[in-house]
Each structure stands twice: as C-alpha cells, then as structure tokens.
C-alpha cells in the first residue's frame, strides 16, 4: 500500500478549508496536491495511485462535470465529493457516475480516511487491470491477421479439422497456426486463450 507514495488531490475554492484539509491528509500519511479551481486541476499531471477530493460547487466548473471530464479523459483517479449543501439528488447522480463517496462538510477524520483508502484501493486495482489489458493487447498485436482469425475460431472450441473447413484451408495449416498463437500469446490451454480474448474484447467467430 505504501510501496509507492499515494497522492490525494484536493480541488477546493475555499482557501482556509483547502489548507486545513491538506494538513489533515498529510498527517494521515498521504501525499497531497491542492488546486483552487477545476481548470488548474484538469491541466495538472496526475500520478497513481491516488484519488481526488472534489468540491461540488466550484466557481468555474461544476464538480459533477469535472467528474465527467475525468472519465472522458480516461483518467482512472477515483473521485470523492465534498459538499457544504449535501443535497441528496446531487449525491445520487454523483455516485451513479462512479464517485467513491460523498462527504458533507464538516466531516470527521475517520470518514475521510475511510473514503480515501477505499478510493486508493480502487485506483490500484483499476490501474492493474488497465496494465493487464495493455499487456494482453500487446500479445495479441504480435499475431498476424491470419493468426488472429484462427484465434477467433480456436476460442469457439472447434477442432482443427472443422476450422480448416470453415476458413477453407488444410488441417495442417491450422495446426501450425494454432501452435503459433499459443506460443505468441504465451498460453498453454484453450481456456487461457479464451480468458485472454475476453480481456481484449475479442469475441469468437460465428
């Protein structure tokens, strides 16, 4: 958990609150970067693992929109909302969009810590998943188009003979393709291959 420094980003226009929050977070043992506006936060470099404490009411961009923009950017940073109003309809839509928590001001140390931990855990697993996906993609990319095609047939569970018949070639060729695919994707069974295909969103041929 603490193998890498975990950063909590703060976006809060109230200077006094921002400063106090930063202090508290640091005292809790996290790195903390604070922004007074949404725009400056959106332009900043983000390091994982981490999370963001986002005030719902920001002078420039509404907090909920900031959340949307992050998702669109492909940023994996989980969002914890803070609000001085604590409106329920707003929190519902925020949670729907994937917010980790919705903290009404003033909030206690425990609530904050709990929310941050949850958020960072989610961030770590998200990042890992993303990395795996990237690796799998890289493996698939090593395949020739023909091998990819054969792969889609293999994961249907069909025999070489059947596949050869389907795509109009000999059983022998298919056999060669199959061994190549197994080799390149570093799998040892059809089941593993299926899991890999699922990861990279390759669906069986039909």
């Amino acid at each position: 958990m603490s193998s890498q420094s975990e950063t909590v980003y703060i976006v809060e226009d109230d200077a006094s609150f921002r400063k106090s929050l930063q202090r508290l977070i640091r005292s809790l043992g996290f790195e903390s970067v604070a922004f007074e506006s949404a725009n400056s936060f959106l332009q900043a470099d983000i390091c994982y693992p981490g999370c963001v404490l986002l005030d719902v009411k920001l002078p420039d961009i509404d907090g909920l929109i900031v959340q949307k923009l992050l998702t669109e950017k492909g940023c994996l940073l989980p969002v914890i909302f803070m609000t001085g109003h604590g409106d329920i309809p707003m929190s519902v839509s925020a949670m729907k969009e994937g917010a980790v928590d919705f903290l009404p001001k003033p909030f206690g140390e425990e609530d904050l810590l709990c929310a941050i931990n949850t958020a960072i855990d989610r961030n770590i697993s998200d990042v890992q998943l993303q990395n795996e996906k990237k690796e799998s993609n890289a493996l698939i990319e090593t395949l020739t188009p023909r091998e990819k095609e054969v792969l889609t047939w293999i994961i249907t569970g069909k025999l070489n003979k059947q596949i050869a018949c389907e795509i109009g070639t000999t059983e022998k060729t298919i056999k060669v393709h199959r061994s190549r695919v197994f080799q390149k994707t570093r799998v040892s069974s059809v089941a593993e291959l299926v899991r890999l295909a699922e990861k990279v969103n390759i669906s069986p041929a039909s």
Partner: protein
Amino acid sequence: MSGITLIWSINAGICLALAGLQLLVWLRARNAWANLLFSIGAVAAAACAVGEQALMHAQSPAQYGKILFWMHLPAGVMVVTVVWFIHFYLKTGRKWLAWLITGIRALVLMLNFLMPCNLTFQKISNLRQMSFLNETVSVPIGVMNPWRRLILVGVVLFLVYVLDATIAGWKQGNRRRSIVIGGATLLAIFMAAVSSNLMVRGILPGPLASMSFLLLVFAMAFELSLDLIQAGQMSQELKKNQERMSLVARSANLGLWEWDFDRDEIWANEVSRARFGVEASERINFDRLLQSIHPDDRDAIRQAARNTLENGEELQLEYRIVQQDGTERWLATTGQVELDLHKKPLFLRGVTMDITERKLSEEALRKSEQLARILLNATSNLTHLIRADGIIIDLNDAMANALGGSREELIGTNVFDLFPEELRERRKALLRRVAAEEKMLRVEDAGRGRIYDSEIYPMKSTEGEQDQFVIFAYDITERKKIETRLKEEETRLKEAQRIAHIGNWELDLQTNVLTWSDEISRIFEIDKEHFGASFEAFLAAVHPDDRDAVNKAYKRSLEIRKPYNIMHRLLMPDGRIKYVQERCETYFNPEGKPVRSVGTVQDITERVSVQNERRELRHELAHLNRIMLMNELATSLAHEINQPLGAIMNNVAAAKRICSRSEKGTGEVVEILEDVIRDANRAGQIVLKIRGIVKKEDPRREFEILNMNVKVDDAIHLLQNTLKINQVNVHLDKQQDLLPVRGDRVRLEQVIINLVNNAIEAMNENLEKYLTIHTAMHSSEMIIVSVTNSGPGIDAETRRKLFEPFFSTKKSGLGMGLRICQSIIEEHGGRIWLEDPTEDGTTFSFTLKVHQEDAA
C-alpha cells in the same frame, strides 16, 4: 146616238175622269210626278179618242188628213208620258232611251207639222165608206208617207225601252207593277201594231189607237189607285204610330218639337209645352221659347241654332230652363235640320230630355271627385290607381312627385317599370291574389332607396275590363330606420347586458308590478317561461344570510331617498353561490311618495371568484416565498458555517495527529483538541438540525407537466398591477411549439416573478421601460426562458457576485432572490445565468429540461 160615238165618248170620258183624279192627287202632292204624267197621258188618250171618233166621221179627205194631222200631237204626248211615267213610277228604264224616244216623237211631230198632209199619209186621195159596228165610217185612201217609218222606229225603241224597264223592274222586286204596267204597254203596242195593219188592209176603219191607250190608262190608273189605297192605309198606320209615339214620348218624358223656319212657328208635344210652360193653344215661336230659357244659356242657344241653320250641323245642346215657380231644370236637346231641294233649311226637328237628375248627379259626382282628389293630394301617401297590367290610370300629387313627373305625363305609364325585374313578377302575383281574394293586402317593398308599405285594394271591374287596383303606398323609410335603430339598440343593450352580466329591473310601487330583463332571469336562473318577475322569486334566490341585508338596504334607501349599491350572494338550488352587485334608485313624486324603483343586478361571481383565487395564489406564493427564503437562508448559512467548521475540524484533526505522533505531546493537548472537535461537530449537528427543521416546512414539490408559455402568462397576469403602476411595456415573444417541461408550477412561476420584479426594479430610473420575455427551444432537450429589461445594466463587480447569497444591490434586499431562483432551476435540472449585456438591455436566462415521457 151611234155605237161608235158612244164607245169612243165613254173612252174619252173615262180617260178624262181618271186624269182629273190623278191631277188632284198631284196638286196635293207636288212631287208625285207619276200622277201628273198620268193625268197628262190620260188627257192625251182622251184627245186621241175624240180625234179617232172624228176621223171615223170625217166627210172629206182634207178633213180626214187635218184630223189625223192634229191627232199626232196627243198620240206623241201619250207615248212620251208613258215613257216618263214608266221612268218615274217603276224607277227603271234607260234615261237615254227615254230621251231618244222623246226626241224621235218630237221629230215625228215636227215632220208632221212640216208635211203638207200628215206624217201618215203623203196624200189622201179619197175617202171610202165602210161599215163598222153597224155604222158607216170613213176610211182614207191615199199614198202613205215614207216618213211614217220613223214612227215605226220610235215604236221599236219604245218596245225595247219597255221590255228593258219591265225586266229591270221585275228584277228589282216590283213584280206586280212591272207586269201590269209593262204588260199593258206591250199589249197596247201589240194592239196598235195589229190594228194599224188591219187599218192599212182596210179591215178596220182606223188604227183605233185610243183603245190601246185606254188599256194603258187603265193599267196605270189601277196601279196609282192601288197606291192611293196603300197611302190611305199608311196614313192610318201613321196615325197609330203617332199616337204610340206621343205615348212613348210622354211616358219617357221626351219633348218633341219641330221648328218651321219660314213661319217661325214651333210645334211641340205636350211634354215640351208643359216643360216650357206654354198653353196647348198658344202659338210658339223662337223668341217665346227663349223666354223660358235661363238667361245665361240664351246666347249659347242662339249660337247653336245659327250654326245648325247655316251649316246644317246636328243640334246638340244642354241648357237650363227656368220654370214658372222659379226652379231650374236642365234639358238636353238634339235636333236635325231638314232642307228643301235648294238646300234651304225648312224644318228643325228634335227631341228634348230632362237631364236635371243626371246633371245633379254629375255635379255631385264631380264634387265628390274633386273632394276625393283634394283628399288624395292632401295626403303624402303615394296613391295610385292601376290596371292589372300595371298601367297607371290615375295618381295623386305625392305619387307624381315621387316619380318626378306630372300627373298627365304619368297616367298611362306602367308602374311595373319602376320595379326591378325580379320584383315585377312577385308584384303581379300579388295583384292576382288581391283580385282573387277581393280583399286588401299589405306589402312592404323597397325602391329608389326608400321603403314603402303599400296597401292594395281591389276595384270592382265591370265585365270585360281588366281588374283595377288602388294602391296606397306609405313611405316608411324613416319609420323603418327608427325601428331598425331601436331594434339594434335593444339588441345591443341585451348583448351588453349579457356580456356584462347586468340585468335591469323596474318596480312600479303604485301597481306593485315588477318587470325585469332577460338577463336577470338568467342570473337568477329562473325559467322565464314558467316564472315571471316577482319579488318572491327574487328573494328566494338571495342567499338566506343576505336576505335581511338586502331588505334593509332597500328600505333604508327609501327612507333616506338615496340610491343604494350593495353586493350580496345568491344561493342556487344546487348549492352554488353567486355574487351579485345590486344598484337601485327610487323615484319619488312631488308629494314625496316613492313611485318607481329601478335597479341593476350584475353577476360578479366570476370576478369575485377570480379575486378569491388570485388572493389564494398570492397567499400561497407569499408563503412559499417565505419558506424558500428560510430554506435558502438555512442552506446558505449551513454552507457558510460548514465551510469554516470543516476547516476547523480538519485542522484540529491534523493537529491531534501531529501531537499524538510526537512523544512529547501530552494527553492534555490531545484532550483539548478532541473537545474542539466535539464542539465543532456539535455546531455542525446544530446547523444540520436547523436545516432539517426548515426542510420539513418546505412544501412538497409537486411535479407536473407544464407549458412554460402558460407559466409566463400566469406570472405576467399576477404582476399586471405592478407592471401597470410602473408603466412597463411588456413584450412577450413566445415560441408557439415550445415543448412541455416537468416541474413545480408554483416554484417555476416564482422564478419568473422574481426575475420580472428584479427587471422592474432595474428599470426604476428609466423613462421608457421595456420588458421582454422570450421563450424558445434551447436544444432538443432544453427550453430557454429569457427575461430582458431595458435598465442601465449591471457592472462587472456586481456580475461576479450576483448569485452569491446575501448579496444585494438593494438597500432592503436580503440578497436571496436570485439565489432562490438558482436553487429552483437547479432542482429542475436547469441552469440560470446572466447573459452578456446587449443593446437590448440586461437579460437573465434559464434553461429547463424538456419533459420526456419515458424519462419520467
């Protein structure tokens, strides 16, 4: 005496007797030429008879020749008279032949007188004695005269003439006369020819012409005698006729008269005499007649008589006579003049009638016609008499004026020409109906820009005449106009009453009769068919709680003599309540007694209920406003407090951690910090609690589907007084196909009201205030509402803080208005903002999500 002498003498005697008889007839009737001719002929015949007798007794040839010489004269006369007798009596025979025969006879006579002996014998040598009728008579012996043939020619012509005349007479129908006269003449000629031959042959002593002549004389005398007998009979008849005539004249009161000019004597029948007051024995002449005649008419009579006498004109006169007792009578005379051969007037004959009655009735008729005409002309009705075919027979001045012509010009013109084509047939049909039904019909029609009410009366027509009609046309244009205007005004009043829901009533306090207009029945919902106006009906409709007040108000107004004006309620049978405004005024007579109350009742239910409704709405709005204000205050307060509170708590938490990490950190500091946290937490809880309490007060949001255009209208309606007072020109620019939104009616209205109120205040200093509310589709999912004012605009600093709580540019403002708007709009998923300033002014806009069925 010898036989010959006896016979021939008798012959001559008879002839003379007949001649004398007929001469007498001629003397009495000078124009009886036939009778005169007969007389001459008969005398000649007698002369012939005497001559013949002398011939037979002649002693010497010379004597014989002499006698024969002279006998040619009566014989010629005889022939000529017979010729002309036939001409005059039978009225036939060719005149030229008659003249020719007359001429030949005259020539014969002339030759006879020129000859030495006579025309029969050139020379008589000797006389022969022969026996005839036992007597010795002398017969001449000598040389015949060759000219004797001329006599023969004459005889032949005579024969032809007689035959022709007889046939003509027969053909004309005078058969007997023609046969007798013609036959006798022919027989006589035949006898004369035979005897002449016998004489020449010596069988007869002489021609014995007198015998033939006697036959002729007999025949002629016979006819003339028959005529005489006939004339006698006729005179009998005539007498009878005259008697009849005078009887008729008397009974018909016809005056007959005859004026003999030569003698200036007037014959008059009894009727005439009585009329002129003349005794039966008195002789009348023209002057005597004139005396009886009205002095004024005498000249006219003289003139008429002169004209008649000079020109032979028929006399026709109407004049007055003055009777002995002084009374006047009217007479009418017609007469004809009789002329003699020289066209000289002989008589004037005529008939006189008493026409007094006729004259009187004519006069009466004339007077009544005159009166009728005066009456007709005195009226302004267009009166005219027409035939069924439309020809004007008569008309009055008014009609003539209306048609723009004189009476004379217009008589004979066709009244149908005045009608337009399409009306003509209708009018003709109407006339036929009037004629058929024989009664007056009225018809109203328009023409020449005026309206006429016509009465058409049928006139009894005599056989063979067209039906006639008297038409009285009244010009009712003005009346119609007034009627129409009255009707229009009445309709307008009714309409006005209906629209304004005002009814009027009138109570006659003397007869206690109440009348009211239809609108009152409608307001009171009383079936007018079944219930008339009555005070009971009125009172029954008044709300029981208000009856006393109504009664009192009326009584009081009678006491203080002032109108009253009250509002009260009506209770309908179905329990509905209506509000009416009642005004009433009473009129008093000079003695101070109330005479008549008039009043109006106005149904103001709608106004009252609208007022009530609006009051409620305002109340609701005000309440909501208050709540929302508190809510917003609490929220803002919470936010404002929570923020520093949060900071405090964060800081303390951080401090506590730092303290607990350092070994030196004593428990007391941590304790203090924990206390701070607890108190901060408590403060946070209190804020939360307050918010909770306020939230409970917050009325539940009632989301419904709304059209923002309607909400804009409603808001403007609520604010109309404020807008009016501030003289704001409102312009609404609404998109017609605006999609509906889902929201809370009252809250959204509040937003618009707040924005409009702000706008009005912003334009406070403006002279001209323009407020525009614009609605449109912002995108397919959002609608936009903009409120623009023509105020001076908002400076940059203010702009920035506009939506912050407790920010206000107004002295008394809380600074929550826009805040509340923002909350409401955001609650509805929309946004509110201030647009960049444009030349139109300052604009606040907000968006709202369009309602989607499936998203509900």
